[in-house]
């Protein structure tokens, strides 16, 4: 059975009353003072958020945001203006504001748009935004119940369901005319565990969080990614933390579990390989293409084409096709993530990585789903190989200083490895390393690649976009662990 590709642009033409003629006029106005390129980015987002807390549905909200961002590029210069009023007057005014960046004779506009087809990596009909509120409510109520049922020491449970439907249309002076409809859903659980007899009778309190989702239908949350799954995960980690000892401090071997620990790649190499930082030579990776920046066992890709994934996109926010980009192959730095502006200025391929938070923002090179490919080691052999070290399986956020390459990521679930065995759970600790060096110490790579559950949000220059990360079990021979213990 073939399903006809959804016509994403119809919404903008029929519902918002926009026409290709008006878009051409706006682009003409945008290039009225010269400039090499102009684009219009129309966006309409509807979002819903539901929250259960103390077993009561305490919050429910919905938001609608509609607008257009207009960009004019002249050499390395970018002018930008946006409007939340899509009348032709306001659009033309925004185009004239963006045009202030250029100063020259008007540019001739191309003749006609080139309509491009986008793939269908995620559902449009049947996305969670179409589902009944009652069905979403049932998910968080189930999560609340399951977390409380897990253990009597779980004293507080909060669960939330957030989803949105983002429609975008890009029309550009280079003929680009592309549109997409991007659903996104996420279920979160947060719990507090309390135990008066923990820590030798002095009592203890701990938190646990879990969550997941993607560009999915409601069916995603049945089966193995059920609310009960996330609830039990949150409860399990909180209970575990009640008995955690001090994390060790200092340099030691670190084994990272599969999935979300891939945030290491996002911070250690991903950001440093975004083309804008490399064009400006402000990245610690600038000039390292073709050089060994990681162990030969390491291959890292950024792949925006994985069906249903949180970081996947049918097209980027400049209307470019999304792709799979090899960043590091067998330890050698292969390429950057680029957008229209940077690929043109650098004379490099455009990897379709131009993303933005909303029509308020100028697009820039960003990651999608970033992960390390499988190696050949068995995860249990990796653990066995460590005499004394840290086994970290879950993390909070991370951060990187692009220029000096230093990055951190904070473990939320970790254990000691003693004589080849995973032993006691330790408290959260931040791990720190140097991007262009850290992956050189990868000595074993597992065969158990997993992507994260679908909770990642990446921030850069004040803009947030949804992303994914992943990796198999990996051993780094040395890394600095920031605990307080021995």
């Amino acid at each position: 059975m073939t399903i006809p590709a959804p016509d994403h642009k119809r919404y903008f033409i029929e519902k918002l009353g926009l026409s290709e003629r008006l878009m051409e006029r706006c682009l003409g106005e945008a290039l009225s003072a010269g400039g090499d390129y102009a684009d219009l980015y129309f966006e309409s987002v509807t979002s819903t958020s539901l929250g259960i807390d103390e077993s009561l549905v305490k919050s429910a909200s919905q938001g609608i945001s509609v607008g257009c961002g207009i960009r004019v590029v002249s050499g390395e210069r970018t002018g930008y203006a946006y409007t939340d009023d899509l009348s032709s007057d306001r659009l033309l005014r925004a185009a004239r504001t963006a045009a202030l960046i250029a100063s020259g004779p008007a540019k001739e506009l191309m003749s006609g748009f080139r309509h491009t087809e986008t793939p269908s990596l995620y559902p449009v009909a049947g996305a969670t935004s179409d589902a009944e509120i009652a069905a979403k409510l049932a998910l968080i109520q189930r999560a609340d119940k399951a977390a409380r049922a897990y253990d009597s020491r779980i004293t507080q449970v909060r669960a939330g369901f957030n989803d949105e439907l983002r429609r975008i249309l890009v029309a550009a002076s280079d003929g680009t005319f592309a549109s997409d409809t991007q659903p996104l859903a996420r279920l979160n659980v947060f719990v507090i565990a309390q135990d008066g007899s923990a820590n030798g009778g002095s009592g203890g309190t701990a938190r646990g969080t879990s969550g997941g989702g993607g560009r999915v239908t409601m069916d995603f949350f049945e089966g193995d990614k059920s609310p009960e799954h996330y609830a039990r995960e949150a409860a399990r980690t909180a209970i575990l933390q009640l008995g955690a000892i001090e994390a060790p401090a200092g340099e030691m071997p670190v084994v990272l579990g599969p999935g979300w620990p891939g945030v290491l790649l996002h911070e250690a190499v991903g950001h440093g390989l975004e083309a804008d930082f490399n064009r400006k030579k402000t990245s610690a990776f600038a000039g390292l293409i073709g050089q060994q920046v990681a162990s030969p066992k390491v291959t890292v890709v950024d792949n925006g084409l994985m069906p249903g994934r949180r970081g996947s996109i049918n097209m980027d926010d400049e209307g470019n096709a999304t792709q799979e980009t090899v960043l590091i192959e067998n330890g050698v730095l292969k390429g950057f993530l680029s957008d229209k502006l940077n690929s043109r200025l650098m004379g490099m391929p455009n990897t379709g990585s131009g993303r933005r938070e909303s029509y308020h923002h100028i697009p820039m090179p960003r990651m999608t789903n970033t992960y390390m490919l499988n190696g050949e080691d068995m995860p249990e052999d990796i653990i066995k190989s460590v005499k004394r070290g840290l086994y970290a399986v879950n993390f909070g956020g991370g951060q990187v200083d692009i220029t000096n390459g230093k990055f951190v990521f904070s473990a939320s679930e970790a254990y000691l490895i003693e004589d080849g065995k995973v032993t006691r759970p330790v408290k959260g600790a931040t791990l720190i390393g140097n991007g262009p060096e850290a992956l050189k110490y990868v000595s074993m790579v597992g065969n158990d690649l997993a992507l994260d559950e679908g909770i990642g949000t990446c921030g850069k220059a004040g803009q947030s976009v949804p992303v994914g990360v992943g990796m198999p079990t990996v051993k780094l021979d040395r890394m600095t662990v920031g605990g307080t213990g021995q």
Partner: protein
Amino acid sequence: MSQPASTVSSDLQQLASEVLSKALKAGATDAEAVVYEGDEFSTLVRLGQVETLKESGSRAVGLRVFLNSGKAQRTASTSSSDFSNESIARLVEGAITLAKITSEDPFAGLPEAHEFGKIEEDQHLYFDDVNAMPPAERIEIARRAEAAAMAYDTRIQNSGGGDFDTSTSHKILMNSRGFTGEYRRSYCGFSAAPIAHDEKGNMQRNYWFSNSRTVTKLENPEEIGHEAARRTLKRLGARQVKTQKVPVVFSPEIARGIIGNIFDAANGDAIYRNASFFSGMLGEQVAGENITVIDDGTLVHDGIGGFGTRPFDGEGLPTRRTVLVERGILKNYVSNTYTARKLNMKSTGNASRGLAGNPGIGAGNFFLEAGTLTPDQIIGDVKSGLYVTETMGFGVNLVTGDYSQGASGLWIENGELAYPVEEITIAGNLKDMYKNIVAIGNDLIFRGASAAPTMRIEGMTIAGA
């Protein structure tokens, strides 16, 4: 010159009042509307050339409705950037429909009518020189700041750029219990972010900035550029140090984050859930006797409203001054109406209101009271230790107080700043850290809504090589 905040934008007030009356007509027993309008401008100048220029305005409306069943209330909220009649109708209908599926909660609901109010004096939050400044002048300040940084030293050959940002906003809050308030705020600021390299080609970046509510109070672009350069050059040649336990001196920029965690730990929302290490600690000693921490939503510094100053909070209660910690004793939790009811207390006027969602809890101007020592004295007393100028990461756990962050700064040897260090972590537990603040500086300067002077904490663990 300062504009009184009472310049009425009758269109927006009328919209808020229309939304409210439609919500009540549709069945809401109470409602609250917020209307926001703002303008933003930003420019980035890099290597002397304008790289980006952005200028725009936006607006949005948010609605919160309540359905009262007698003893308890249901509530929901909606927001929209579209002010058309059709969209407003959907906003109202959506909120009522959503509210019906929420649970009855005896603690939900607007504040009582007698609680509403606002600071009537001019808080000097809006200056029209910000919007009046021509774009060319703004670009010129960004250019001068970057140029000064780049000219400072030959080791600075690259730059993240110089920028200049402005924003102005106008907010109206109105509810069905008779509160109407509005205020305008203005902001302008610029920074320089030079990049320096050493002889091995290793790069370091840092920045410095100036900001205010009025153009007239901005610092000299050359001085800011030079300070950015000095801060960047200081990081060149940084190395790791060994894992050890030493005294740690925090620069004001980093100290304010650690002190900011006191606000988060005293947040009533975390308190009633037992999700804070301050839960159950009211009246207890939570910090050294030298520690007094205050939240003040009414501060005016030299005729300019603080960055955390506003006449009323997100629910229409007057802002105020709240002492959280007085000589080490936890005196107050901070709350909005909901959490105050949960805790059987009075709201401290710290409600923060976004466009949609239930109100959160936010700080006004939040600070650690200054001590008497100079930063040099605080460093001078350290034989061997760390002076932290930057932290990275998300390793702060407010449930347990566990603290573990990436750090960089300068190593202190015999009371002097000796050499730069990086790729290390600092760790401890906030419960102990607040009790071990042994020295507090006299350098309290507000560069944002929160501030803290230089301070020294004994006995933190540094992890490195």
